[in-house]
């Protein structure tokens, strides 16, 4: 009887490769590291491709529209946030696409990942503790809970890792020291 319960049926055509990988990008150091992890996986097989998903957060819409002088500059600023991850894909010869969606980050990522049936979602985490998460919220938490496919979330950034890159909006995103809090 127990043996029958333990008999797991495999689907025909078991997929051995993460073909469609979704990486959530927000321009932060954490999402850049997430993109780097995605590169590690995507470079294992030529058939893998990566989609860089940037969410234009509803809560930030007012601030971003107010600070941009026009729609074109706003799009440029957003593109600039995705640029480092894009460059990473290009340098490593990974097939990739960029997608920008507008909405509340957590639900939007989940709905999109589920609708488009991605094989893997890679999303960085700020490493907040329980109390901090309650106050500041956690997008990655919601995604891990509700998306229908595997999620790579625990991305460790070592103490003292330095990233320096400049954005199209003429402001140099300086040194990003990372600490695992």
């Amino acid at each position, binding site marked *: 009887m127990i043996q029958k319960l333990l008999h797991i049926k495999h689907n025909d055509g078991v997929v051995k490769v993460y073909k469609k990988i979704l990486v959530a990008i927000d321009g932060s150091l954490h999402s850049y590291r997430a993109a780097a992890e995605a590169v590690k996986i995507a470079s294992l097989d030529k058939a893998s491709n990566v989609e860089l998903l940037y969410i*234009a957060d*509803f809560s930030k*819409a*007012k*601030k*971003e*529209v*107010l*600070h*941009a*002088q*026009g*729609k074109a500059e*706003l799009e440029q600023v957003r593109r600039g946030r995705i640029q480092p991850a894009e460059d990473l894909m290009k340098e490593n010869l990974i097939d990739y696409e960029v997608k920008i969606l*507008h909405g*509340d980050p957590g639900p939007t990522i989940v709905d999109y990942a589920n609708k488009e049936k991605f094989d893997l979602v890679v999303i960085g985490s700020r490493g907040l503790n329980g109390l901090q998460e*309650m106050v500041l919220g956690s997008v990655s938490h919601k995604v891990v809970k509700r998306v229908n496919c595997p999620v790579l979330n625990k991305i460790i950034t070592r103490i003292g890792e330095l990233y320096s890159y400049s954005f199209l909006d003429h*402001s140099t995103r300086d040194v990003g020291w990372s600490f695992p809090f």
Partner: protein
Amino acid sequence: MFEKIKTDWFFNIKGDVLAGIVVALALIPEAIAFSIIAGVDPMVGLYASFTMAVIIAFAGGRPGMISAATGAMALVMAPLIRDHGIEYLFAATILTGVIQILFGVFKIAKLMRFIPRAVMIGFVNSLAILIFMAQVPHFIGINNMTYVFVAITLLIVYVVPRFFKAIPAPLIAIVALTSVALYSNADLRTVGDLGAITQSLPTFLIPTVPFNFETLAIIFPYAIALAIVGLLESLLTASIVDDMTDTSSNKNREARGQGIANVVTGFFGGMAGCAMIGQSVINVKSGGRSRLSTLVAGVFLMFLIIVLGELVVQIPMPVLVGIMIMVSIGTFDWSSFSYLRKAPKTDALVMLVTVAIVVATHDLSKGVIAGVILSAIFFVAKISTMKVLKQEEDNQITFQVEGQLFFASVDAFVDAFDISVEKKNIVIDFTTAHVWDDSAVGAIDKVVMKYRENHNQVTIKNLNAASKKLVDQLAVFNDPKASTH
């Protein structure tokens, strides 16, 4: 035509109806509080929100955007009501509408792009500050219970949404705290102390003001200020909704719609209104996308007033104060502090000046106009900086001209040349420059001819196409008969 109705109104019925209801619930306290800021009966703000929302649903250019009675408009109209009374407000509102319709017809909405971001940020920040300042007389120095209620309201409004999002927190605060106030018989001022709530639909009335030039002289400045402030906030809000929904909108149609809505509002006993950033964001976040959401918001608001009007007079003032403080905090652009650090000093100064003038004069329109003028002056100053790089080699002096050559920069240009040299080969290179007007050509003439008088050979090169055309047309230095004067 029916297809169009479907695409404009009914593609998202469930989302729109729910969002409209949420907006109406959140709008009641705001409309009442803004009426109090303006110094009018709460009913005026509520009627205005009803008529604005309903008319804009049909006539506006940005589906999904919410227009109603607003703080910005309330602040502008307050002195008019204080000095002349409410009938003058209705007249001014109608005139505001007419001006806005004209702005829309003459496609002035395009001029919005000339308003620098520093001025817009200053506008938003000064609006937040003024809304906060308007609350002070309602909660400072009254009694301790007032402070307690304000604090609890703020607590509810900021903490509850983390756990429970279905009903807007301001409404929960009102219902809960009004009940507490009634049961505990707390010594608090209420909405009823400041005005009466009539539970009926608005009626058409022609403002009882004398129809003469004197009235026009009184209301016209206010109408212009209201039109400008209203369109400014509405077009900013439209841009925000455009971005959130990733669609575009017809700004001129919106201007016309705002105008029509204000005309109607004035005739139905309402105060002038405009689009609201906060409520529009709530609408889109709650799933509202089409004109239906705006209509539902307006109609449901009126329904609530008719049904619940009696209870509205019991709302304690400190609760509204707390909600207004929340609105003020939400309106203020907190990233302004990093903006001040990172933006060019002239931009930062424009922003600060805009805020300073608004707060000093209590007039949003004066601040905006001052900011735009200051920004224009800085722009001309910046663009008139001329750089002339000099390179000397044997007998040849090459000058590289950099920048825009026009009336404001000709002096800097002429001063850059030492025309006392003799028998040299002078080359003036305009690759990185642009010649804009006849003063510029006159300046080039002057320099060239003075050099030639001192037996120097002068060559002008690398004028871009537009500059060359102007120089060929107007210059005299290549005319053998001319001489300097």
